[in-house]
């Protein structure tokens, strides 16, 4: 459904090779609310998509000369989105009110998100919705170990979709779930093999800085068991360099001081800050500010209409590679205490 600000939401569906992206997309597209959805895919695979608007994009990346890889423009994606927009405006294609981009298994989500947030025409017509990452429970260890993109895809996710859990050994799904929650506690989990498709949950919904999804609770309560412990041991060597931390700050923060701190942190450590997601209690504002960043890319902050819980403290989740949690917390607190004499005559 088109958003209230008339920007068309764009969801990114990513996940490693063979992790069930297209199968999930196929299930999603059967939902009545997905009838006016345009789909951009990288390649037509073995699973056919019987849908009105499916378009293929090549994978060409334009790396800015001075740029880092996460901030490169996906030229193909830019052309595809602008083309869809143009054709919709001219009435050449049915009016769509959502776009889903299915990436290749090896895609780094950074350039895709950067393209959506940076290209002037695109950012004035589209807004980024949830990033959905599929994780094959059976082969999670293989996927996370073979390629750095696998970790990036998990870190960038707003929704983590467990696939093939019906084929997994007992306890493995719970172990994978726990490890994914450790890696990205800000994402909500959903088990595709056990639960009916909930397009509302997967595509939209209020940002959640720290609440895991219902599937996560269920799986954790189920317990991993002995085989789950084996699975955890298998996964941990590939993911132990990545950690997540959740910082809670009791006092309202100066938004400007926070911006200075985060921009300085991303300048120096952006490659190792895989994700920043949080809800901030900002001085001078009764309602919270939601922030969301992937590596060097920070989404425009959103003012939420209300606090999602009675707890009005700032809560920020960081997914980092090799950064010291205590040092990060001390640094943030020190910067948030920065004060200057009140300015006058402005």
């Amino acid at each position, binding site marked *: 459904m088109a958003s209230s600000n008339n920007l068309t939401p764009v969801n990114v569906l990513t996940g490693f090779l063979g992790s069930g992206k297209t199968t999930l997309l196929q299930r999603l597209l059967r939902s009545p609310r997905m009838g006016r959805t345009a789909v951009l895919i990288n390649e037509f695979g073995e699973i056919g998509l019987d849908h009105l608007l499916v378009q293929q994009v090549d994978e060409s990346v334009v790396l800015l000369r001075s740029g*880092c890889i996460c901030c490169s423009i996906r030229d193909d994606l830019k052309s595809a989105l602008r083309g869809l927009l143009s054709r919709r405006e001219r009435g050449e294609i049915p009016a769509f009110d959502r776009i889903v981009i299915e990436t290749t298994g090896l895609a780094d989500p950074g350039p895709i998100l950067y393209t959506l947030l940076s290209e*002037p025409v695109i950012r004035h017509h589209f807004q980024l919705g949830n990033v959905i990452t599929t994780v094959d429970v059976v082969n999670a260890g293989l996927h996370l170990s073979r390629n750095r993109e696998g970790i990036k895809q998990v870190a960038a996710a707003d929704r983590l979709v467990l696939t093939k859990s019906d084929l997994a050994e007992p306890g493995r799904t719970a172990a994978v779930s726990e490890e994914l929650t450790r890696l990205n506690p800000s994402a909500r989990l959903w088990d595709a093999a056990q639960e009916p498709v909930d397009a509302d949950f997967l595509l939209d919904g209020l940002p959640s800085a720290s609440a895991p999804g219902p599937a996560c609770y269920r799986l954790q309560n189920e317990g991993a068991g002995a085989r789950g412990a084996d699975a955890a041991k298998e996964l941990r060597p590939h993911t132990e360099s990545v950690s997540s931390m959740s910082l809670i700050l009791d006092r309202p923060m100066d938004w400007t001081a926070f*911006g200075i701190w985060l921009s*300085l942190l991303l300048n120096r450590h952006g490659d190792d800050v895989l994700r920043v997601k949080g809800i901030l209690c900002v001085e*001078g*504002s009764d309602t919270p500010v939601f922030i969301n960043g992937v590596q*060097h890319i920070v989404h425009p902050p959103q003012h939420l209409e209300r606090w999602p819980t009675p707890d009005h403290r700032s809560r920020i989740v960081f997914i980092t590679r090799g950064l010291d949690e205590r040092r990060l917390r001390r640094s943030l607190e*020190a910067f948030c205490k920065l004060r200057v004499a009140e300015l006058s005559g402005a």
Partner: protein
Amino acid sequence: MCGLCGVFLGESHWTDVAVGALGGARTRRHERLHRVALANRILKLYGLKLSDWQGSAYLLGSQTGQTAIVPSVAAVWPAAERLRKQSIDPLDARLIEVLEQD
């Protein structure tokens, strides 16, 4: 804005976005001056000074007269590191101690 590349994401940097939505507690001009003053709390430790430039950019200067014009506060840091030829790390224990004692 990419903090590393200093490339615009659009007309405004993400640190600017919340300004108007904060209920007009500060004007845009006031907010820019506040941002400059806070950034200078860090930059002075490295012998650098930031000032507003025409309300549309920032002028970063060193004690030896080197200058750089940058579009946003995020672009200040790579420019500052180039001018000083040293990294400015918010996780540097000495920097944190200085700020804690300040």
